[in-house]
């Protein structure tokens, strides 16, 4: 999808927090000189083209019963990466799963984030996943400290809307 300047301004705004009001796109439409219907149609197009992969609320896991998570690095032969990646992804406790270029001295190539109520539940889940996906070589990387967690800000400069 070819993004126009207006789309970038809309993206810049939607990556922030949507105002909790009856017509949350009204102010944005006014600033862009568009109708609300046009803004909504552009947002729909961003969604249809998968530029926007989700539109909704982001929850804090710790407060919704999933206090623990672990990054699991798996080492699988490249020819099995897709099959194993899909098998791991089928677990609802897995939020992210990627096949990545491995590093010289860190030869793991599949990465998945696994969530559970506590560390024990995460470990048990990973053991079950390993068996189901037939991937026995893996390493658990529990997070000890969150050093940064933000959302990427795309097109921040393009998104500046100058009044007047």
């Amino acid at each position, binding site marked *: 999808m070819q993004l126009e300047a207006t789309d970038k301004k809309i993206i810049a705004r939607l990556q922030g*927090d949507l105002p909790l009001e009856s017509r949350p796109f009204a102010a944005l439409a006014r600033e862009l000189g568009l109708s609300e219907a046009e803004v909504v149609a552009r947002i729909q197009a961003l969604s249809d083209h998968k530029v926007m992969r*989700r539109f909704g609320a982001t929850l804090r896991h710790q407060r919704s019963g999933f206090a623990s998570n672990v990054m699991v690095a798996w080492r699988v032969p490249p020819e099995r990466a*897709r099959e194993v990646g899909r098998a791991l992804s089928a677990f609802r406790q897995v939020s992210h799963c990627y096949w990545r270029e491995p590093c010289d001295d860190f030869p793991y190539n599949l990465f998945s984030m696994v969530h559970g109520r506590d560390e024990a539940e995460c470990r048990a889940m990973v053991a079950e996943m390993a068996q189901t996906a037939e991937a026995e070589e893996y390493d658990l*990387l529990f997070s000890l400290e969150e*050093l940064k967690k933000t959302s*990427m800000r795309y097109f921040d400069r393009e998104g500046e809307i100058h009044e007047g």
Partner: protein
Amino acid sequence: MSTLLDDTDKAILRAVQSRLPIDQRPFAKLGEELGLSEEEVLARLQALKESGVIRRIGGNFTSTALGFASTLCAAQVPQEKFAKFVETVNAYHGVTHNYRRGHEYNVWFTFIAESMEEIEANLARIAEDTGVEKICSMPAREMYKIKVDFPV
């Protein structure tokens, strides 16, 4: 925390964490789907934000669809260089997630930029500025899942 949520809160959370209707009046539309008034949906969402259950309501974008490159980086950072390294890395706005993990590679962060060349140049500069030489970058070949919904 979850025990403080009633069934209506949970129904709203289940719905909005996967999809808010794309509509001129999204909260009215959501209310229609759940059998609630627009006012009630807005009031409950406001309360869920104030109590911290909801972090943000908005869009999540695919970096590659926007023409950006991204990678997962891991670094081996000795204790005496840790604070400086974290400060240096976190200063990049393309570094969105960063965790200390229990491994020889003890710092793991994601890096998004306009191109892979820009990411590599930044990693080289980080290595130079911090004296941490073991930084590896593992760009994605294929993505199988990215879904941050949880049972509520």
